[in-house]
């Protein structure tokens, strides 16, 4: 999201699912296995292709299901997204297909950007990416001749050490084509979890208060200090630690306590052995969860939370849409809504500790319901300024920014003007992944999810039907590699990296190209994250889940 924030001033999906599905004349789908990970958006893309003839370009090393519907499949080498996008932009510029008016009026930095793109000739791009010059030219032509085109991506773009560069390249592409601020266009990162957008929006990040108000900005600090009954010195001006930075510090003994709500780092973080070590080294691990997850053995305190069906409140979806969650049933036993647990804990910490909190508008923790919490959010978070449960219950559909109680929300960002004023072209050079295959670890591992399971699998492995239809981890191996490896009848494989080893059933398929295997992280007995590398994008701190080197053996 840092990439988009740099280019445009706001790091969220720019358009709405409806306008993308109904108005895009072409889709550029790169690094999202949409039909499996955002199935309803996948459905909408298939409908657009079948029912109104929209063009679809899929750029993915794997032959994902959407490729059956694609006008063109660019099967580039993993970790060569920047080169691919630069190469496409090179062809667009060479043919004069760029939107000169848009570049002139709404962007800056074009000249510096062009210098870099000029170096990515079709020959050079083809050599880096493995995509033929013909296909590169066809793709550039499709994107130029079918407007608006919408770009969609997910973790296939961001989970690289060059994740931010990848995103900025896509922002460059859409500005070059003039596809910003229009129905059916835009830069659209699909968010993987029901409320990952909301968690980002409401201060669940180390560098920002709710509504992306920077912690390093003294004015924002003053605002929150006043609202929460603190002196300014009591709030830190320093950016905090990301999850991927906390774990190494815990191993070193510098991070002493970790409080985890509804997350399962043992399944979801890279290099699982390292995570286990980190949690074991902490003095205190508090886990607020609905299940005894894979992280639970490392916890000192386990607090039972409520599932989504047991509480009222809101989630914010990938298109910035704030929607109600309604309580349908009561929680088992003494399990409590997470907002109740946090409030009660906060009161106890404040009552027993040395930290002084004065009386102020929002210093207290006496919440009767989540409606009251939303009122506090609205008062302190400009992009949620006009959000209330009542408006949502009345049937209004609100996409942030919602400036005040009368504002109808914002279905498309950057119409007429970018959040930062002019859009910023950024010159981006291709950099290869950190760990590439070598003699000892000759194949590439890429990781992700499958349709029938979800993230660390705590929920889906406890859903009978989903477990029945996909009962164990499968590792995708190309037919040619299977033959080379001499996979025998039982097709079990052992996959090892410098960090760990897993054994699982192989799925022999041409979905993966030769030289690459693909594994998921849904099953603790064979989780891909035992193998993944904790190499991070230097800015966004995202681990490189999509490329690391492994050795594959037949068992």
């Amino acid at each position, binding site marked *: 999201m840092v990439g988009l924030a740099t280019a445009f001033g706001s790091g969220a999906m720019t358009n709405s699912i409806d306008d993308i599905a109904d108005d895009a004349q072409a889709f550029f789908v790169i690094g999202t296995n949409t039909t499996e990970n955002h199935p309803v958006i996948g459905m909408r893309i298939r409908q657009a292709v079948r029912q109104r003839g929209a063009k679809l370009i899929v750029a993915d090393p794997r032959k994902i299901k959407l490729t059956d519907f694609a006008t063109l499949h660019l099967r580039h080498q993993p970790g060569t997204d920047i080169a691919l996008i630069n190469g496409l932009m090179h062809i667009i510029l060479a043919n004069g297909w760029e939107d000169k008016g848009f570049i002139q009026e709404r962007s800056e930095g074009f000249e510096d950007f062009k210098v870099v793109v000029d170096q990515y000739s079709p020959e050079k791009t083809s050599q880096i990416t493995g995509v033929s010059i013909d296909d590169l030219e066809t793709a550039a032509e499709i994107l130029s001749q079918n407007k608006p085109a919408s770009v969609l991506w997910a973790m296939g773009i961001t989970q690289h050490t060059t994740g931010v560069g990848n995103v900025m390249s896509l922002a460059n592409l859409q500005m070059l084509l003039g596809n910003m601020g229009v129905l059916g266009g835009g830069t659209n990162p699909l968010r993987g979890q*029901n409320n990952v957008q909301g968690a980002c929006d*409401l201060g669940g990040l180390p560098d920002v*208060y709710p509504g992306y108000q920077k912690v390093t900005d003294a004015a924002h600090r003053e605002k929150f200090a006043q609202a929460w009954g603190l002196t300014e010195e009591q709030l830190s001006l320093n950016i905090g630690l990301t999850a991927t930075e906390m774990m190494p510090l815990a191993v070193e003994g510098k991070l002493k306590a970790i409080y985890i709500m509804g997350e399962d780092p043992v399944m979801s973080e890279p290099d699982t052995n390292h995570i286990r070590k980190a949690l074991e080294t902490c003095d205190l691990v508090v886990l607020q969860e609905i299940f005894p997850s894979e992280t639970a053995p490392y916890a000192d*305190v386990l607090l039972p939370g409520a599932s989504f069906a047991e509480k009222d409140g809101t989630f914010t979806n990938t298109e910035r849409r704030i929607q109600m969650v309604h309580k349908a049933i009561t929680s088992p036993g*003494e399990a409590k809504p997470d907002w109740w647990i946090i409030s009660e804990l906060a009161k106890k910490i404040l009552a027993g500790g040395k930290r002084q909190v004065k009386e102020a508008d929002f210093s207290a923790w006496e919440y009767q319901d989540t409606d009251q919490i939303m009122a506090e959010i609205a008062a302190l978070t400009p992009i949620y300024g006009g959000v209330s449960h009542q408006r949502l219950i009345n049937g209004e559909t609100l996409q942030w920014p919602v400036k005040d109680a009368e504002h109808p929300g914002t279905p498309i960002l950057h119409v007429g003007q970018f959040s930062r004023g002019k859009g910023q072209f950024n010159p981006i050079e291709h950099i290869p992944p950190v760990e590439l295959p070598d003699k000892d670890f000759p194949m590439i591992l890429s990781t992700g999810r499958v349709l029938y399971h979800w993230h660390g699998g705590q929920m889906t492995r406890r859903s009978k039907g989903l477990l029945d239809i996909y009962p164990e981890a499968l590792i995708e191996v190309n037919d040619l590699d299977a033959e080379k490896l001499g996979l025998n009848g039982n097709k079990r494989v052992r996959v090892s990296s410098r960090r760990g080893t897993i054994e699982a059933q192989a799925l022999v398929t041409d979905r993966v190209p030769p030289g690459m295997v693909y594994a998921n992280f849904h099953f603790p007995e064979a989780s891909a994250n035992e193998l993944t590398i904790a190499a991070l994008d230097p800015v966004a701190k995202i681990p490189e889940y999509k490329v690391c080197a492994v050795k594959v053996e037949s068992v």
Partner: protein
Amino acid sequence: MGKVNLIIDGKEIQAEQGDTILQAARRHNHYIPILCDHPALPPEGACRICLVEIEGQRALHPSCTYPVTEGMVVETNTERVRAARKFNLELLISDHPLDCMTCEATGNCLLQDLAYEYEVKEDVFHGTRHHFSVNDPNPFIQVDRNKCILCRRCVRACREINGVEAISVFYRGFNAYIGFGADSSMDNSPCEFCGSCVEVCPTGALWPKLSLGQGRSWEVEKVQTTCPYCGVGCQLVLEVKDNKIIKVDSAWEGPSNHGWTCVKGRFGYDFIQHADRLDKPRVRKYLLDGKQKPAASKRDHEKEGNPWQWVEVDWEVALGITAEKMNQTRDTYGADSMGFLTSAKCLNEENYLMNKLTRQVIGTNSIDHCARL
């Protein structure tokens, strides 16, 4: 779009150019019975229940496919129309099980409603009946072809909504039946189990296996909410009976999904009531005993007396111990020695509170979640 004026049952109405008679009638809340039509799907003209009389036309015509024309005069409820509908319903019933008393769809079955409305009381055409076995082995959807009326709603839903074309009608006439893939089982076809077919099935031919025997349509409370899986934010309707979710229905007005959803949203809800759910706070025994944290190597949660043993406690004790340990950590090592992981699964309101806990109560900015993972 131009307007078209016509008369339905003596009432002058205005329709849009290109409307069918059925669509025009619906715009004016004028009821015409039909089985094969569904608002989310293109018209099919399969069931012959929506027949109407059109002035100047000798035969009855299906209103779901017949386009409106200027000055058209339509009668939707004459003796002749009603008799034709009843005849068609009797034909359907002559090859349909009359087991409404145990059928899952009872109370939520269009065929049952229309049989009631047209007073179809028994099987008047005694002929051959189908006896299909009900044995599709997939884990999600029960397929009972005996209850299928060949309206092709499922065929259209699979083609038009999910776009995978896993369902089609095999053979013709009395031999016709719905089948999957190359006439195989559902799990051996391109089916992705989005459940759109189940949602639009007007009878009990397609039914969620998880919902079998769980409750009657009139016993449930319906609660609309947002799906807990991916970021699309599908709206779902949960059917609740006796504090248990027994079925998920489409929320057709959901702004991001328009009633569609995927296999996880429709059939992946039973985790909520899984026996593994944590229902009491727990702390390690060493914390209750006021001891230092023992070495990880000594960990044995099951063993009685082991310092790592989990002990169930009440909220007062659990939160008291947690607050005390957190205060100690901060006072000894500083606020930046603590890290907080908030949750992309939890509510906006809860994420805000975690941010407030981290920053106001503890005094660090080290809060994050798995957005990157």
